[in-house]
C-alpha cells in the first residue's frame, strides 16, 4: 500500500527555535564642528565614506539564523542662507554609482539624505556620499549608518507557534533627530491571510516560512527602497525608523510543503 508522501517517518516536529537579535548603536559620530561647506559642483572625492564593519551588524543569540542584511546610510546638513538652494547627492557602493538625487533646502532649513537600498550588504562594503549644491552657503555636518536584518529563518518550512517581537530601529541621537516610523511586513507567500503590516509583537499558531521572504520583510529597503533627500524646516537628521525583529521563535514541523 502506498504511503502518503507527507509521511516521512520522522517526528512531527523538531526542537523549538528561539533567538534574539540585538542591534548595536548606529555608527553616528559627533556633528562636524564647524560644518563643512558644500561645493557648487560635484566633488571629485566623496565627503563621506563609511565602511560596514562587524560592529555594525546585528548580534544573534544563542545562534544566527539565515537572513539578509540591509544597510541604512544617512547624511545631512543645513542651509543657513536666506535663499532656497538645491542640494544634490550621489551614493557609491564600493566605488560604483548606485543613486543620485536632489531636493531643495529651504532658507534656514535642513536636509537629510536617506539611503536604504533593496539589496543586501556585507561586512567590508564601502558607501561613499558626495554632496554638492546649486549655490554656496549650504553645509554638511552629519553622517550615520546601521544594518538591519530582514527575511529571517530558513525557507520553505512549516512552523507552529510562530512568534515575533519587534522594535523600531535605528534610533539616531546626534543632532536634532526627527523620524518617521514604518511597520514590518509579514509576507507568507502561501498563507495570504497572514500578510500585512505589524509592529510590537505578533503570533501565528501555524504558518510557513516562504521561499523568498521567510519571516517577512523590513518595510523600507526590502519591501520598497528608500533613497531620498528630505528637506525639513530646521532639523536634521530626518530619518526612517522601522519595526525590526528582535526576537523570533517557532517550532519547525516535519511536513513537506
Amino acid at each position, binding site marked *: 500500500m502506498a504511503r502518503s508522501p507527507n509521511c516521512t517517518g520522522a517526528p512531527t516536529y523538531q526542537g523549538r527555535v528561539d533567538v534574539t537579535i540585538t542591534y548595536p548603536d548606529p555608527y553616528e559620530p559627533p556633528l562636524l564642528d564647524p560644518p563643512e561647506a558644500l561645493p557648487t*559642483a*560635484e566633488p571629485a572625492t566623496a565627503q563621506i565614506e563609511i565602511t560596514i564593519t562587524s560592529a555594525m551588524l546585528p548580534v544573534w543569540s544563542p545562534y544566527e539564523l539565515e537572513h539578509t542584511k540591509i544597510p541604512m546610510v544617512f547624511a545631512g546638513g543645513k542651509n543657513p542662507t536666506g535663499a532656497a538652494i*538645491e542640494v*544634490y547627492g*550621489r551614493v557609491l557602493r564600493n566605488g*560604483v*554609482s*548606485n*543613486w*543620485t*538625487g*536632489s*531636493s*531643495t533646502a529651504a532658507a534656514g532649513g535642513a536636509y537629510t539624505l536617506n539611503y536604504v*537600498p533593496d*539589496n543586501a550588504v556585507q561586512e567590508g562594503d564601502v558607501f561613499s556620499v*558626495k554632496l*554638492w549644491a*546649486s549655490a554656496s552657503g549650504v553645509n554638511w555636518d552629519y553622517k550615520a549608518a546601521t544594518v538591519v536584518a530582514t527575511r529571517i529563518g530558513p525557507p520553505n518550512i512549516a512552523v507552529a507557534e510562530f512568534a515575533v517581537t519587534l522594535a523600531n530601529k535605528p534610533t539616531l541621537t546626534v543632532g536634532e533627530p526627527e523620524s518617521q516610523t514604518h511597520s514590518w511586513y509579514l509576507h507568507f507567500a502561501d498563507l495570504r491571510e497572514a500578510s500585512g503590516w505589524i509592529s510590537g509583537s505578533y503570533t501565528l499558531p501555524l504558518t510557513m516560512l516562504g521561499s523568498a521572504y521567510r519571516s517577512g520583510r523590513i518595510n523600507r529597503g526590502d519591501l520598497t*527602497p528608500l*533613497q*531620498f*533627500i*528630505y*528637506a525639513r524646516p530646521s532639523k536634521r537628521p530626518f530619518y526612517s525608523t522601522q519595526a525590526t525583529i528582535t526576537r523570533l521563535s517557532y517550532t519547525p514541523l516535519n511536513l513537506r510543503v
Partner: protein
Amino acid sequence: MEYVIKNPNIPSQEIGEGVMALDAQLRSKGAEGWGYSFGDNTLTVSGPEGMDLSAFGVVADG
C-alpha cells in the same frame, strides 16, 4: 505625490552635470525632489498631483 518611471529618458547620471541637468528639467515640471537608482534604472519623482512627466518615460505609479 510620488511618480515612478522605469528606464527613464534622462541625461547620463554618471557625472554631476547630468545630475544638475536632470534636476533643472524636473524642476521645470514642478518636481520637489527626485532620485535615480542605477541598479534598476528607475527614476522616482516627488511633486504635486498632475505633473506631466511623459517626456521622461512611462509613469508606472502616480
